[in-house]
């Protein structure tokens, strides 16, 4: 039976850890997003045509949101579990009567909360630069939560897999960020010449960006249900991997 008090303890502690570096955690994404809007929204965006009737500055908001969301969620979650392993404080978690449910709800819940806060901050920041409206706000929040959950789980796996800081940073740096940039953050897949528009569909991030863009403007590169399906599938794979990790104790217990 799940212990909600244990879950709450892990969750609040992780959030406290976030608050200790709140200035950096909030300021960095605000600054980065502002820079993107200045460069792509104002400087370049002014010369770009509307995309499907959406102003280019507004068009890139879901992509920028996804760019920050994936990076921050993955790193928050991976650091959350990696640091206790690195410093040895993981002993407390492993020796406590808490299982996979409490651990995941605590760590992943906290990472999700941070991500949602960041998403809200980015949307508010975007409002300073461009005018936009969200076509399906409830679905947008739901989709952001779904992606945050999936990548919190992914970050958790990364934090358990990594046995040094280099490995911890290599996946977000070498895979996640490039795939997000190439995943339609700043352009529509339709704008790519053949065969790149087809090749781009092999990039899973395309479906995430496209899904979120649909909840904003009701139009996307791929069908919204395919985006939902792929996100849910990725989440299910992550849950299965974590269940395996806890069952076998891989990289957690000697």
């Amino acid at each position, binding site marked *: 039976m799940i212990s909600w008090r244990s879950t709450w303890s892990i969750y609040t502690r992780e959030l406290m850890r976030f608050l200790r570096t709140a200035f950096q955690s909030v300021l960095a994404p605000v600054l980065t997003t502002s820079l993107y809007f200045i460069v792509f929204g104002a400087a370049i965006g002014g010369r770009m045509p509307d995309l499907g009737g959406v102003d280019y500055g507004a068009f890139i908001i879901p992509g920028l949101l996804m760019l920050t969301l994936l990076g921050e969620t993955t790193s928050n979650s991976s650091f959350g579990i990696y640091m206790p392993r690195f*410093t040895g404080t993981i002993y407390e*978690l*492993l*020796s406590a009567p*808490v299982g996979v449910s409490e651990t995941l709800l605590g760590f992943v819940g906290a990472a999700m909360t941070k991500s949602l806060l960041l998403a809200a901050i980015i949307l508010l920041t975007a409002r300073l630069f461009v005018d936009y409206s969200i076509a399906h706000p409830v679905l947008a929040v739901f989709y952001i939560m779904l992606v945050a959950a999936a990548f919190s789980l992914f970050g958790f796996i990364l934090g358990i897999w990594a046995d040094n800081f280099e490995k911890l940073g290599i996946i977000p740096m070498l895979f996640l960020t490039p795939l997000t940039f190439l995943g339609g953050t700043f352009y529509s897949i339709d704008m790519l010449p053949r065969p790149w528009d087809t090749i781009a569909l092999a990039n899973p991030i395309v479906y995430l960006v496209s899904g979120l863009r649909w909840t904003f403007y009701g139009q996307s590169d791929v069908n919204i249900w395919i985006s939902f399906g792929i996100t849910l599938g990725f989440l299910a794979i992550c849950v299965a991997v974590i269940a395996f990790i806890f069952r076998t104790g891989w990289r957690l217990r000697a």
Partner: protein
Amino acid sequence: MEPILELSGLSKVYPGGLTALDNVDLTINKGEVFALLGPNGAGKTTLIGAVCGLVRPTSGSIRAFGHDLASDWRRARNRIGLVPQELSTDMFEPVHRAVSYSRGLFGLAPDRDRIEEILRSLSLWDKRDERIMALSGGMKRRVLIAKALAHEPDLLFLDEPTAGVDVELRKGMWAIVDTMRERGVTIILTTHYIEEAELMADRVGIINRGKLLMVDQKDAMMARLGRTEAHITLARPLSALPSEIARFPVELEPGGEVLCYRGGDGTGKGKAEVAALTKALIAADIDYVGIDTRESSLEEIFVSLLGEGKAA
């Protein structure tokens, strides 16, 4: 005696082939202080890790408070506390928050009075708002003890609790262990300091290379393996042992000036025999100018057992 922890045929072989625990059988009774002695790499920390969920045993079983740790681990772990060997805690956290977190992690409701009581008992109350990183090494170790006590465990593991701690703090730590013992907490401690085991433990286990070489009441172990050694400096050298003292386990050291007695059993028998020996010397008109006696310590027993283990 009520057994609260039972290890049966417990083994741990690490992937590289190192056998850290080799078929260990051990029963710990309620309310006792059990000292696990052994050199570095003997398997002490692995044994603790296996009970506390940090190490997956290769074979064997562990029952704590009647619960099988493999299947009913939640109920068993609820009642077990661990103070690790390393000073592992979030150094940026204030003391009281770190201790409160530990209580919550074990599923208990916040209890400010209980946390205050624990912090006061460990002389940490004045430091409650300080970040752990600002505390001395001894204080940090106390914080780890406070964290382990926050969920009011019935069984507490102290892995090298006084490693790297100065003499004064070490004595303070012994006092803390005494207090916990009085409260009825069962304690299993590992240590390199034999005097610590001599002072605090009710029972002692000696482990080396994963094998539990001996487990016994400390006093019984001392009685069984303890020895008295006495060096009697004679007024005049002897060329051979006189027949009057031949019944004693004595030998004449080279030069004939010192008689060496080695005997007894750690229960005081040795001292009595040394007294009888001195009387026999006087009766035989053999004068002496000095007597130096000493009892063998647990450390010597420990070293001797390890030596036998190696020879085997």
